[in-house]
């Protein structure tokens, strides 16, 4: 069946991503990075990266998520696109939800928000400083698209798959962008960033995305892809292989309700 093959692809890609990230973070040298750049054709001339920092102040905010709770409605993607650009466009979204309708749960969905990496490879390797750590706003890893020269280095260097740097067309030119935890949302009447609100978190109908202030464990996915379900979710009859199967009848346990 189609799903089987695609799920297989995904698994191999995850493994591939793991080894690539291990290489980058463990090696961490400009020489290694340059070697990778050289191995892939660039769309624009790539200046030498500035001297890379070895350590960066930790971001004061992260998005964690529950890929088993996600329903694949893509509301988060469209919210992201709307508040940042005033339009609806999945390709502009800084969080990507990738899904295969024919696939097998839980491998049918992959949630891909930016991780606000401890060592932000995009920042480390941007040749013009368009990718930066915003020390005035909670150390959020950001990209100033107006400074981007379109070299695509950050796309190639991002250790995640899919890469969390997002290619957008601005004034007819391709530029890079990435999640800023909604610091700069000209089309939303809310304050974003650490301490503020994030559009994807606010609109997700399954409450499958959550803002946290503490850096998740820096493993491949485990630290970020977490369990955000409670007993009410089990009452829907939606289980995964790790949960206790609830009794299935119409006299469910009634959990304490909240106020309107």
């Amino acid at each position, binding site marked *: *069946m*189609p*799903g089987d*093959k695609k799920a297989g*692809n*995904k698994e191999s*890609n995850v493994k591939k991503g793991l080894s690539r990230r291990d290489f980058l973070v463990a090696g961490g040298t400009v020489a290694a990075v340059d070697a990778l750049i050289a191995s892939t054709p660039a769309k624009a001339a790539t200046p030498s990266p500035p001297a890379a920092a070895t350590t960066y102040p930790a971001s004061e905010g992260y998005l964690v998520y529950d890929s*088993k*709770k*996600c*329903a*694949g*409605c*893509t*509301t988060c993607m*469209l*919210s992201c696109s*709307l508040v940042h650009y*005033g*339009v609806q*466009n*999945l*390709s502009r979204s800084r969080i990507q939800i*990738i*899904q*295969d*309708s*024919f*696939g*097998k*749960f*839980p491998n*049918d*969905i992959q949630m891909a928000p930016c991780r606000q990496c401890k060592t932000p490879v995009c920042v480390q390797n941007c040749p013009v400083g368009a990718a930066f750590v915003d020390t005035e706003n909670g150390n959020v890893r950001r990209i100033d698209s107006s400074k981007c020269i379109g070299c695509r280095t950050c796309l190639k260097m991002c250790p995640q*798959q*899919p890469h969390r740097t997002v*290619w957008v067309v601005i004034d007819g030119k*391709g530029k890079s962008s990435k999640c800023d935890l909604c610091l700069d949302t000209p*089309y939303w*009447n809310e304050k974003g960033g650490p301490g503020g609100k994030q559009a994807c978190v*606010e*609109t997700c*109908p*399954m*409450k499958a995305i959550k803002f946290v202030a503490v850096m998740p464990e820096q493993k491949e996915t485990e630290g970020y892809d977490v369990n955000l379900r*409670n007993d*009410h*979710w089990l*009452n829907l*009859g*939606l*289980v*995964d*292989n790790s949960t206790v199967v*609830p009794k*299935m009848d*119409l006299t*469910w346990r009634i*959990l304490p309700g909240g106020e*309107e």
Partner: protein
Amino acid sequence: MMKGGYTGKILRVNLTTKTIGTIDTAKYEEFGGGHGIGSAVFFDLVGDQLPFDAFDPRNCIIMMASPFSGTFMPGSGRCEVQGLGPMLYPIEWFGHSNFGGRFTAQLKFAGWDGIVVEGASDEPVWINIVNDKVKIESANGIWGMDTWDTQEEISRRVVPDLKYGEWAELAENCFTTQIPAVVCCGPAGENKSRLGALLHGPGSQAALCGFGGVFGSKKLKAISAIGTSDVPIADPKAFMDARLWYRRFQWDVDNPREAERFGTGGPYALISGRPSGGNTLNRDIPLTPARAAACASCPRGCRMRLATSDSNESVCGGTMTITVQGSTKFTRQGNDLMQKYGLGHWQLIPLMGYVQTLYRKGILGKGKQIDTDLPLDRNGTFGYADTLMRQIALREGIGNDLSEACARFAEKIGRYEEDVNSGELSLAYYGTANHYDPVIEAEWGFGSLLGERDLMLHMMSNYPIHWMAWSGDPYLTAEETAKLYTDAMEPYQGDPFMVDHSDGPTGIYSDSKVKQVAWIKHYEKFWVGAGGFCGWRWPMCITNNTADRRGPTPRAEEKFWNAVTGNNLTFADYMEIGHKIYTLDRSIWVLQGRHRDMEVYPDYIYDRPTRGHDMTMYIDGKWKYDTGAGRKLDRAKVEDFKTRFYKFEGYNHENGYPTRATLEKMNLGKVAAALEKKGRLG
């Protein structure tokens, strides 16, 4: 000048001449979008040539998105399909069907507000849409595939180096992580079965009207769309505010409060938008691990995707048509087989029942009057279901006749009058099956009878009331329900008798019911049809997700539409556009031969006393939930109801034809001219 919601152009593909063109969306903006624009385009292209057959190359398949498609407007992910429907009887009415998923979203991202397919190819083809690049491709190697393999193969051909989980650059600067959205017919459609459905994904099915068969008649296997461009929004801030405001009406997955009190397994929970409940085939212990799965932008996610991947994204009829005794797993796979063959479930259900009825009567079977080698004594097995569906889809043996769908099959064997009027073959509306009881839930019946097929709009008044009453523990009294529900029904609000289901003076034959049926048709045509709304989500007049029990209707519709499009109209204004679209549809039916004398139920619906069902009824001066058991429908009162309905809508009550005055008031003067030319102006 259109500000938002639209991309500005509709794709026009002629399969006879192999030409690709565009239609300017702005020309049709007055019809809203979706169904409204589809009807107007159909009339402009072929209205003057009617009547002709559904399999005639002149028939158009029109697949329209709405201004909401591709946006996060809750529950707006449907694709409206229109054209002459070969399933419908006795005339292949200009019909509509729709399906969920993400097809219209991708179509909009590709830069198109809809697709019009004209003509017929001499060789199997599919249409490949990647942003503004559109090609008519050969379907060699795809023709003959089931619907699932078709979608996989086409995805591979659209993006040859597609790697799941990675970005693909479709063209310079055009990146996406998404898989192409494909809609296709299966073997049933290829063989021009009148049961032929359109499939998108594993279970999103346009089941009614037989549009899969129309695809087959055009040698059109599939349409694929993928895009990376923007859908403009007129007022992004207002749109975001509206979406956040809407959260209060959603089922809160972390704390559903009292909604959970009523259980989560029954259809009652549909009213409040419980995630995942549309798939009825994951209720056995141990449960199969699964997620709730949503169509594009739907906050509910009524579908499931399972660890076994069988019955993925199928709901309701998509999970209940085939039953394999003793095995949930084979039942799921049996229903999946129906999806792969591309058979429309809402026609297959009565057809399978009718075959068994004829078998039990000794009319159909090996060596019988209707000779067949179907293993009829093995009903309830996977083998029987597979054999029957394969014969229908491939037109093998008795399947060749069954493929003509219920009404024409019954006609062919000379039993239509007897079996339909007796109810042995439970058809009700133009060859489509009986559904909710038209004797009690009269708005469903009238709404269907005055349309072209079963209404299939579950959130219209009867349905939330039906299931709330069914629970035995309704959260509103009958009086509260009547008041709250009808408060939302602008512009007729304030008349609680619109939902009086008694047969008394304020009940199912009353002027109040006339208004309710008009409201349903107008809502159907504008918000569901033109807006691409899901009938399992909208309208939402009552809900137990809010403290005051009021749903988002009518405030949400107006709020969202204006934010997206930049218009500044009221809910009532848009309902009047719905009236206009309904009048246009009705005019097309009249051009095909519709007359009020055809708008009658089969005899059994009038003559058979109903078992009834608890609904809101006003009896002896009091509101109560009552069943109406034993009631019969009165023919004279039905006819009188129709007369008042036609007058209310601005049609001639003697024949049901729209009048010149009504049409001209709606800026449909050219429609009046077409009717006059045929001698059918009301």
